[in-house]
């Protein structure tokens, strides 16, 4: 664990106060940390909304709320989790890590970076203010299909606030994507060719391309729905000549690539952690890059698999493309396993969360494949089977990867290690709680329980599994308490980390923890995708 002493001539930045510093900063590291904190706040908000949903569903009968409130809870749960937690959290990791990993002093457009961040708390406040207006918050599902989401059936402002907030959050994403792409292409240190960049950087690059191309299409749809709701527009109104499923086509043209936006950076994190904790390079570096690009490209060709039951899509094409996208995903899985093969694994928290990711994402990928078979989708669409699928890939996948990333990079961000024991306790609780909540949903969906229902009859036979799922949900909530405690005590008293506590591979570990504002005093020679590893072992190992 080497420690670098900063050059005595290095400038010191004096600011008026810490608060002013953070509010006005354009430093990608501080902005990245703020992204992470803001995202965690909305993770907890989204989680509370989920607990409300689970509490109501534990038993038949409406015990705690009316149907409209229930519909708001699941709508806002998904909206908060997807738009305000997963996507920005991964963007935050990217913001922190990408300039460091390519040896740059900051992002290409630091002020736009700050703007991108501050749009998020604003968007979050806007979307949540729906709870305070007449009629309540948006309540037609995070997918907001018209005519239900139109003015005739949801006249209150909640849906309009949702539309405005998502537009704002989408704009934040798009500006971030411009920043990432420009930074990655223009700000790499000497020797850092494209094919020596860490996989995390590659996944952020492909993700940013997806954001750039897909998010504006969602924006156009949001504008159309806003016009329909408020100005008598007829985009989605058959009586005016509009087409109802036009919304679904536009929405899913974005929202399908969006799920790759939500998983690719997570896969990037796993691809950084596994090699470090196996003490071997990532197996198949170039294959990884091609697989990532293939997922990105194919991701634009599958959107209508969310619409198989509408009777208005060309089924064979979308079914084929959906099956095909399993192939590059499988390639990644095999490459990760091959990275561990013949390695020397040390079971510290980043690795443990990565292993959880591998298993949970495997299940999520497999249960997704069932839906690619169109007749099976006819049976399972809009049932709890889909809820199982999305949570296995988003929670079992992205969230576990996020925690792997937190435990991995917290030392770099703060200079202190997180407590390993608390991290392992958290993992066990999350793992058990997660599987208890979401595995039974396979059974519930197969037996016919639809999604988005506030209540169900006691004769349906769904009561026991719903109760189990609710218990699991509360275990997840309990499992997050050790995490909060861990962060709190580690910030104060955590073991000092030094530059490189994990004996890692990439450039962020070549500077202090936390890095100085300009990131690097000096850079090691960059001759492979593991420059710090090469420097530690005295020889270039690579390409």
């Amino acid at each position, binding site marked *: 664990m*080497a420690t*670098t002493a900063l050059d005595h001539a290095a400038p010191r930045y004096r600011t008026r106060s810490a608060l002013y510093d953070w509010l006005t900063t354009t430093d990608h590291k501080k902005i990245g940390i703020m992204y992470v904190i803001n995202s965690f706040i909305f993770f907890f908000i989204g989680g509370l909304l989920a607990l409300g949903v689970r509490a109501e569903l534990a038993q038949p009968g409406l015990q705690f709320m009316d149907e409209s409130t229930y519909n708001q809870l699941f709508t806002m749960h998904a909206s908060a989790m997807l738009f305000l937690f997963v996507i920005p959290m991964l963007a935050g990791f990217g913001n922190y890590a990408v300039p460091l990993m390519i*040896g*740059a*002093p900051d992002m*290409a*457009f630091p002020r*736009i970076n700050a703007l991108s961040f501050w749009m998020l708390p604003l968007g979050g406040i806007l979307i949540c203010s729906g709870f305070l207006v007449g009629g309540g918050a948006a309540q037609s599902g995070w997918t907001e299909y018209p005519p239900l989401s139109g003015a005739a059936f949801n006249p209150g402002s909640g849906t309009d606030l949702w539309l405005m907030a998502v537009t704002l959050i989408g704009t934040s994403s*798009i*500006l971030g*994507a*411009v*920043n990432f*792409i*420009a930074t990655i*292409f*223009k*700000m*790499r*240190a*000497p020797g850092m060719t494209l094919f020596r960049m860490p996989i995390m950087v590659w996944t952020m690059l492909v993700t940013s391309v997806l954001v*750039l*191309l*897909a*998010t*504006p*299409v*969602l*924006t*156009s*749809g949001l*504008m*159309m729905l806003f*016009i*329909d709701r408020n*100005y*008598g*527009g*007829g*985009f989605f109104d058959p009586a*005016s*000549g*509009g*087409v109802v499923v*036009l919304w679904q*086509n*536009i929405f899913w*043209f974005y929202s399908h690539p969006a799920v790759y936006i939500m998983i690719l950076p997570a896969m990037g994190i796993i691809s950084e952690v596994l090699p470090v904790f196996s003490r071997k390079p990532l197996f198949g570096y170039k294959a990884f890059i091609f697989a990532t690009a293939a997922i990105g490209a194919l991701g634009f060709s599958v959107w209508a698999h969310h619409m198989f039951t509408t009777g208005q899509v060309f089924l064979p094409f979308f079914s084929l493309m959906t099956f095909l996208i399993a192939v590059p995903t499988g390639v990644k899985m095999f490459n990760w396993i091959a990275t561990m093969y013949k390695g020397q694994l040390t079971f510290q928290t980043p690795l443990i969360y990565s292993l959880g990711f591998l298993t949970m994402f495997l299940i999520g990928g497999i249960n997704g494949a069932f839906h690619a078979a169109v007749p099976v989708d006819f049976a399972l669409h809009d049932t709890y089977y889909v809820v199982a699928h999305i949570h296995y890939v988003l929670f079992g996948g992205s969230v576990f990867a996020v925690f792997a990333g937190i435990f991995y990079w917290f030392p770099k961000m703060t200079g202190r290690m997180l407590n390993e024991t608390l991290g392992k306790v958290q993992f066990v609780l999350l793992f058990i709680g997660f599987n208890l909540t979401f595995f039974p949903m396979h059974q519930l969906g197969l037996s016919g329980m639809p999604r988005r229902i506030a209540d169900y009859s006691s004769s349906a036979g769904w009561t026991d599994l719903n109760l189990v799922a609710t218990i699991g949900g509360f275990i997840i909530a309990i499992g997050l308490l050790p995490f909060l405690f861990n962060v709190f005590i580690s910030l104060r008293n955590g073991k000092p980390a030094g530059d490189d506590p994990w004996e890692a591979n990439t450039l962020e570990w*070549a500077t202090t923890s936390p890095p100085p504002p300009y990131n690097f005093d*000096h*850079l*090691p*020679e960059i001759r492979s995708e593991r420059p710090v590893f090469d*420097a530690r072992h*005295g020889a270039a190992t690579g390409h």
Partner: protein
Amino acid sequence: MTADSQALTPVEHSPVSGLAHDARGGISNPVLGMLLFLVSEVMFFAGLFAAYFNVRAAAPEWPPAGYQDFLHVLPLAGPATAILVLSSFTCQFAVWAIRRDDRAGFVRNLTVTLALGIVFLIIQGTDYIVLWTEGLTLDSGIYGTTFYTMTGFHGAHVLGGVIMLSVVLYRGMVGQFSARHHDAVEAASLYWHFVDVVWIALFTTLYLLPGTQGGG
């Protein structure tokens, strides 16, 4: 840390060389940023066009009954198109001027560009008033909705471009640009050309494409 990496890397290869003008060659960061942003703007309009063609294909006839006679190339939309296309030319003349350090030529051409842009907006506004009073409104079924939505968002982008050009013109007039430093001019001109190209696509689609009868 290895001993041989103590020396600072030479300036030409410094990590900050992507800023402003790139000593290694290639386009500058601000121009790359604008190009990427324009990609996203293209996708935004792509969504609107996709919606338009979708509802058009689903309609039994297009323009729908009762709306056959609203959108005409003369006297307003055609000249507006010519004016916007002309403004792209003058904009490019301005860029060429500043590239060869002809600051007066730059200011002249950019002023004309700005004026033409404002004239375009005035013609559009006039056209809107005429059409609205004739009975084509946002809630005139899907025909009115798509017309105003698409041209309206385009007009908003023209307005944004007018503001951008005004700022660039002001900066040029106070002497902030030279042949070596004028990234904002390059970026703003790219945006202006984009706005023009989108209009050509819109004009062709909304005004020039032949209608359909009994299809869909």
